């Protein structure tokens, strides 16, 4: 509050502020009544079970109950922090996630714009529909296909041999250095089309008269995209960006379990596959919960930071 004197410059007291709050609240009862069911829902289904996070601070195995499991405070976290294989899996997770962010984030945007720019209705619909179909393949099936194709007698090698790029077939699934690329590119193939849906929904709301005006002003197609289409997608791109950044410590367990083998493990083991092996297969729930809790906390920090950055780029408007 400014110190400028005047008959209105008195700071309201706590009491007055609370009163004002409730007055406003009551006045907005219609709108509030739309939000409160959501609040109640979240309370029941998300907040009540949160006590399960205490498992991270206990020694909890299959036969335990929350009140009988012994309390071990930060021991689980200590074990994890000292585990060098855990940190190796963090490196792999971040490596793959960054790669997916660098390439996989842009692809759906470009693809969506390309689809949007098509004028032939039929072709447009066809491409759209086909593009999201890979999303429905399960990793077990897709992984099986990749194993087939990357075999020394498989498609991939046949192609490279025919094109003269290599003279001897190699199974790249056995090569640790190629794993990050295999994981990233196969994931993009699977999910890029699905990722265009949200962007296309945003683009559907763009007023076509803007394009007409731009055309008249002499802008070519690329300029039109740059100055009209993309700015309109800024919010959705920002939202996706902050969510993707907050998910950097996550990874696709199904994909990992299928593509990981004895030879590429050093580059393929990610956080959740490691936790799966160390925790779940040993009936050790506390291990998994502790890692999950740590990852959640880091994710929220990433989210808030990413949000602050995108807010700056969006004229101080937050997507949250």
């Amino acid at each position, binding site marked *: 509050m400014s110190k400028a004197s005047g008959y209105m410059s008195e700071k309201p007291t706590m009491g007055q*502020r609370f009163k004002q709050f409730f007055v406003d609240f009551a006045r907005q009862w219609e709108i509030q009544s739309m939000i409160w069911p959501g609040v109640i829902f979240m*309370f029941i289904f998300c*907040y*009540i079970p*949160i*006590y399960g996070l205490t498992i991270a601070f206990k*020694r909890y*195995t*299959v*036969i*335990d*109950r*929350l*009140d009988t499991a012994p309390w071990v405070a930060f021991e689980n976290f200590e*074990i994890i922090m000292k*585990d060098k*294989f855990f940190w190796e899996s963090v490196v792999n997770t971040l490596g793959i996630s960054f790669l997916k962010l660098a390439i996989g984030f842009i692809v759906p945007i470009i693809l969506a714009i390309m689809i949007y720019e098509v004028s032939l209705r039929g072709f447009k619909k066809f491409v759209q529909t086909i593009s999201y179909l890979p999303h429905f393949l399960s990793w077990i099936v897709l*992984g*099986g296909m990749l*194993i*087939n194709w*990357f*075999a*020394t*007698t*498989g498609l991939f090698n046949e192609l490279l041999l025919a094109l003269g790029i290599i003279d001897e077939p*190699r*199974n790249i*699934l*056995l090569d640790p250095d190629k794993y990050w690329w295999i994981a990233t590119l196969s994931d993009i193939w699977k999910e890029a089309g699905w990722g265009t849906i949200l962007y296309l929904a945003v683009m559907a709301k763009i007023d076509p008269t803007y394009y007409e005006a731009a055309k008249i002003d002499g802008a070519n197609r690329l300029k039109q995209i740059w100055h009209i289409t993309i700015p309109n997608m800024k919010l959705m791109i920002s939202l996706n960006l902050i969510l993707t950044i907050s998910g950097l410590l996550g990874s696709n367990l199904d994909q990992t379990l*299928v593509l990981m*083998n*004895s*030879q590429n*493990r*050093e580059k393929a083991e990610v956080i959740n596959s490691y936790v799966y*092996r*160390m925790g*779940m297969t*040993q*009936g*050790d*729930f506390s291990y998994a919960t502790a890692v999950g809790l740590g990852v959640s906390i880091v994710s929220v920090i990433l989210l808030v930071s990413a949000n602050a950055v995108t807010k700056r780029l969006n004229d101080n408007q937050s997507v949250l």
Partner: protein
Amino acid sequence: MGTARKNKTKILLMLLMAVVLVLSACSKEKSGGAGLNTSIEDRYTLDPNTPAWKLDTKESTTLTWYVNADWWNSDYGNDVVTKKIKEDLNLDITFITGDDTKLNTFFAGDDMPDLISVFDSNSSIVQKADTWALPLNDLAEKYDPYFNQVAAQDTLNWFQLADGKTYGYPNYSNTQADYEQGTIPAKTAFVIRKDVYDALGQPDFSTPEQFTATLQAIKAQFPELIPFGFNSIGTGTGSLGDVFQDFIGVPLTDADGNHYNRNLDEDYLTWISTLNGAYRGGLISDDSFADDGTAFEEKVKSGKYATMMLDGTPQQGGNLQIFASNNEGKEYIAIDGPQSTVGNSPTLNQSGITGWMISFITNSNIDPAKSIQLFTYLLSEEGQMLMNYGIEGETYEINAEGKVALMPEVKEMQLNNADQFKKEYRFGEFMFFGHDRHKTLSDDAFPDSIKQMQEWGKGKLVPHFILENINPDQGTAEARSLSAINTQWNTTLVSLIRSKDDATFNSVLEEYKQFLNDNNWDAIVSIYNEKMARNKEKLGL
């Protein structure tokens, strides 16, 4: 936004958390049965020579049975096997399936099913069964003494906990006697395609030099086949780890009867080096290391491998049969294959005394009497025959050779309509407390494709009891180290075989040895020895 509002948000959030914590402190009520105090006074009187289920006058009971597996078929009452159980015991069973998480919800929610079956003998569920299950000894004494006549004493001893009582009972538990009688069929073999075998004049594979030379000959004569194959490696060792060690007879313990690291055995490493040589010579395909289970099965079905070190012959039986039926004269046959370079005999392994599915009667069981009767029933000859072949005179009969033969219409359905067969008859699938000796009663128990392989394995099986259940307890530092070591061995084994030259081979091996030292190996070995000593006691050795 002013700090005032920010504080308000924080306060409200904290209030929210507080409410949640208070609510979560609410305790649950206990439920469950009367346990060992259930009375059978008005139902029947004990007779040690008659199974109690024949005496029980209780009208009907329903029990819930939890099986800790996704794949368990929870059907009940619609097929011959369960229909008869229902009839004989006046019993309805509701099956629940799930995984470890689901299992834990029962413990956490204090809502235990009546019966539980699990598959991991090393988990705390089995180790701490005295905290949540009823002792079978007491149950037998109180409700069904006949149980002691059908349960194997060795097995009961094996599963005894610190308080001297046994809580769980397994299936496919093979005792020393079983091994000696030779009723257990072998499940591993070194196989070769018959056409390849004949074309090369029935060659020898027994020494490393002969092994390599023969594979080279195969490659020359059959370029479209991969000379040597093996089970998919995954996170384990496929058929090149302990399976191979058993094949060439690496000792189970050292001279003093203590733990012996078979992975570092000289004989075994000589053979691994041989495989490495074969790999360098293009006799082993890289794809074999990347294949998953499905890809391996496809190779079996299409006969892609000229020879294979095959583990789990019954599991591959169907695939081998498919290949055999479509390729007359080329079917896979078992031969002697690689032998020990120091004169050891094979020590093939099969299901041990631990079995692979252990069943318990829980503390909250609503009718322990009926439950122990069920166990007795399933363990008895009658129950076993029912589960494997059905009802004599109705679904099977004893033929002239004294073997069990399914009735023609049943066999017909088994061959041509597998799904219908499962629904109506369900033989061989309902295998609580099953045992291999019942499988050998019939010629139909195993597909033709593996019969010769089982024949080959006769006399080569050796019990590995002393090595069972010796892993460190779950959740301990040693258990975690062991997990890391096993993962490392998984990579090491394959890297050894794929080494480009001898220098690489040796450095990979050194790396593994170093890894053992860096990861608590000594502590793990002392735990091994401790548990092995306990095993010896239980086995009376």
